């Protein structure tokens, strides 16, 4: 893990996230969100969790971003009116960030470097999913089915 790569990816991710949170045009914000998600996926790759990075790219960049763009297109005339930010929200976010930074920087045991580990292969993840995590896996399957049906019912045209 090289520090330079970490810093470049961190700057890209945070710039994309900040643009997604502050741009006025929705479609630009959605595209900047894709940049932020790609940065997070790159972090997973650097941290040695390649499978999570791939899942992040497939699910977020492939599905969620497309879903957001479709929703923007379907609710097209609803332009952001009035613009501007709610100052209370900005103050709350800054206060939360300051509190988190105080906690992180004030804990000396967090200043550890990564130990050497054996690579996390997809085989190990699959074995864990099929043995220790088989019950959560089934629950997630049920949840995804319920979310699919619920999403369809919500957007179905009402019969009159």
């Amino acid at each position, binding site marked *: 893990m090289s520090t330079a790569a970490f810093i470049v990816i961190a700057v890209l991710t945070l710039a994309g996230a900040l643009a997604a949170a502050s741009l006025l045009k929705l479609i630009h914000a959605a595209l900047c969100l894709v940049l932020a998600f790609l940065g997070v996926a790159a*972090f997973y790759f650097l*941290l040695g969790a390649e499978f999570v990075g791939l899942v992040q790219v497939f699910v977020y960049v492939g599905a969620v971003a497309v879903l957001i763009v479709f929703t923007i297109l379907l609710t097209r005339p609803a332009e952001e009116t009035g613009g501007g930010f709610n100052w209370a929200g900005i103050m709350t976010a800054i206060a939360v960030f300051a509190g988190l930074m105080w906690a992180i920087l004030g804990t000396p045991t967090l200043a550890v470097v990564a130990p050497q580990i054996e690579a996390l292969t997809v085989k190990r993840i699959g074995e864990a999913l099929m043995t220790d995590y088989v019950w959560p896996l089934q629950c997630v399957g049920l949840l995804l089915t319920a979310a699919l049906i*619920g999403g369809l019912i919500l957007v179905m045209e009402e019969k009159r």
Partner: protein
Amino acid sequence: MTPTLQFCLIISAALFSIGLLAALSRRHAIFILIGIEMMLAAANLNFVAFWRFGPQPQPPTGVMVAIFSIAIAAAEAAVGLALVIAVYRHYRTTNVTKLDQLKG
């Protein structure tokens, strides 16, 4: 110098705060969903970072939690965006400050 756990936690805290900023200060429903997605991504980043920098248990718990969390976030995004479309059909707006019919 190699990156420490603190570095990852600071990035994730910044991402969380930006998501909170988007969720609290924007008036458009889709921006609020974008903010929630960013906060979830920050939480996942923390899970993976603590897994990578901590002692290595068998099985890899942090990675597993991150995978399940991504699946649940996808379900949440699908239902949330369906709600935005349903609200838009009824009220012709996605501005959350105008959705005050239940206000006494």
